[in-house]
């Protein structure tokens, strides 16, 4: 700063500096451009959020593993040991679905109240507000990758390898998951400003959503036939997280047909026997839909954003 002042009166000319416009409604393109130009703020917020969360705890970020580990342990105990569903390596099956679900649930849970919680910031500092929700999604992404790493270690320990041939679909599937999570997070963060009990409603909805997704049970083995008989398969697949979970399970659990651990001669059809191209087209089309959904979510957020000040 001292250099600048001693250099004297010469300031760089502002004639060709970019012009920013503040007006009642920003176009979607402006919103995306603003978001992109503030990506550094997004990373700062993600890491400061994580740092704050585990600032004064001895185990730090390992806490983020403890709760999913417990969930996994309990489901494994209940379904595999107590009720004996007969799926071999059931913990791995659970894990493959839970990494997906945990990311979604984590992000949506955190983001739902984020604008209300950070009202002080929202009312005083200028930045694209959706970054707050996206920062929560970013934190969830980091936990997701930690869990994915643990999943890989777990597979090593079990001596299992992923479906190498399907692995290239994983990035598409993850991108789809990210867009879905971000869309829900952004919309919920804005809606909660107007309806404060969204936070509680969302907790209930997420539980329902969880059981509508094939994480704990096997879609193919348990309900596929019944859905098909009633012609309701399409309805089940309206849940956009289902194809993502099925993809992850196909990649990390690998086996579509397994021999039941209860009865040595019965074969369980755990995962759909779809071909690689089916998985690809399913994920790719869902990705395209999610891009549109994400843009709609941003637009909706822009509409709701205008009255934040008088509601916070």
């Amino acid at each position, binding site marked *: *700063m*001292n250099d*600048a*002042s001693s250099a*004297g*009166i010469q*300031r760089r*000319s*502002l*004639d060709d*500096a*970019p*012009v*920013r*416009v*503040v*007006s*009642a*409604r920003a176009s979607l393109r402006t919103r995306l451009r603003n978001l992109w*130009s*503030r990506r*550094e*703020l997004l990373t*700062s*917020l993600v890491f*400061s959020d994580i*740092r*704050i969360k585990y*600032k004064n705890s001895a185990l730090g970020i390992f806490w983020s593993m403890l709760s999913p580990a417990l969930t996994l342990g309990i489901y494994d105990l209940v379904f595999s040991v107590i009720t004996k569903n007969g799926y071999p390596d059931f913990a791995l099956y659970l894990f493959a679905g839970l990494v997906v679900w945990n990311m979604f649930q984590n992000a949506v849970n955190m983001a739902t109240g984020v604008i209300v919680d950070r009202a*002080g*910031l929202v*009312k*005083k*500092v*200028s*930045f694209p507000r959706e970054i707050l929700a996206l920062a929560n999604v970013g934190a969830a992404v980091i936990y997701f990758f930690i869990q994915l790493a643990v999943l890989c270690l777990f597979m090593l320990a079990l001596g299992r390898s992923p479906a190498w041939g399907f692995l290239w679909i994983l990035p598409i599937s993850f991108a789809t998951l990210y867009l879905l999570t971000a869309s829900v997070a952004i919309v919920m963060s804005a809606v909660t400003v*107007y*309806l*404060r*009990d*969204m936070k509680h*409603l969302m907790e209930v909805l997420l539980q329902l959503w969880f059981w509508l997704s094939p994480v704990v049970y096997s879609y193919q083995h348990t309900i596929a036939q019944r859905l098909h008989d009633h012609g309701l398969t399409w309805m089940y697949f309206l849940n956009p997280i289902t194809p993502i979970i099925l993809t992850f399970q196909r990649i990390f659990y690998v086996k579509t047909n397994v021999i039941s651990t209860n009865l040595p001669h019965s074969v369980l059809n755990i995962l759909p026997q779809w071909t690689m191209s089916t998985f690809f087209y399913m994920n790719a089309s869902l990705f395209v839909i999610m891009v549109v959904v994400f843009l709609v979510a941003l637009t909706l957020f822009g509409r709701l*954003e*205008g*009255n934040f*000040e*008088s*509601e916070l």
Partner: protein
Amino acid sequence: MTTVIEVENISKDFKIHHERNQSLKERLLHPKSGSTEIFHALSDISFKVSSNETVGILGHNGSGKSTLLKCICGVLQPTSGQIRLRGNLAALLELGAGFQTELSGRDNVFLYGAMLGLSRRNVEAIFDDIVAFSEIEQFIDTQVKFYSSGMYVRLAFAVAVNVDPDILVVDEVLAVGDERFQAKCIDRIRTFQEEGRSILLVTHQADQVRALCDRAIVLDGGLMVANGPVQESLRIFREHLLEDAVELDRTGARAEISIDSVTTPSGTFDVKSGAGLHFDVQMTSHGAYSGNFMMEIFTRSGLLVSRSDAQGSPVNLKPGPNTVGVDLAQIPLLDGVYDVNVGIVDHHGTVMAWREQAASIQVAYTGREGGIVELGASITQQ
């Protein structure tokens, strides 16, 4: 001269909810409960600020000045109209609003810098300047929640003024910190002015506007009532304060007083430095009124030379024309023109009548001293 801020027909409406419930249950059960009122915080405001200009925004509480500032900073979206900004803007709206109390001062500098639109590398480059300016070196790695409020504000101010903004927006934050830090802030603002940056200063302290601004905008009830030279705007600001005071007084018992003219027996306000001056203030009162007489003398650059406090100089005005005499026994001022403001205030300090720049005293000085006041220094070796 480039236009850096262009405000075009900005209006901002707020919905005011009465008895409003924000729960889903209440909304479903009583969809129409509570009434909503539209409050026009800003109506059709337009002005421009060029680079190298310091503009004051004046207005009393609720006049819409903070709303206007928030719109310019992009914190609020205007209901209609648009604002075009050139160059980057740093806002001192509420110092430290972006701070995370759980994080250390160091982490907060980086986070706040990111909020103001700086990259990590940029913040690293100015980090030492920020810490030096804030004077909290030894606490920079302490969590901000353990900071005193003074340290908190100093750090925030240090970040904001060190980010090299083209436009600096200041909202009554100069009232914080101890006197020494305040002086440092004012100093920094003056440096900014010399460097040709634009500054937008919101305040209700007329003195600050006089001292720092090239131009002033006055808001009243969401309307822009003045946009011009500081003296002119301050006069309008005071007049609007008066109008509001009269409106507030519903009993109607309050006397209306107008200050008509200020004259000297000789007809001139030219004086020699060190000589005395007598002048008469003619005013018309619409009723008997007992209040205090008040006088301010300013330099042309806006520095307050003297304020004769209201205490102890009561005047009893009778209905009709009145004359109040003012005797300045000695004017030890140096060469220059000095503006005189006169007014009547009541016992609580509320202004009843005011005249900005009622007279201008021209002082002639032939001695060798510089500055504004003659102290009559004589130097002897002992």
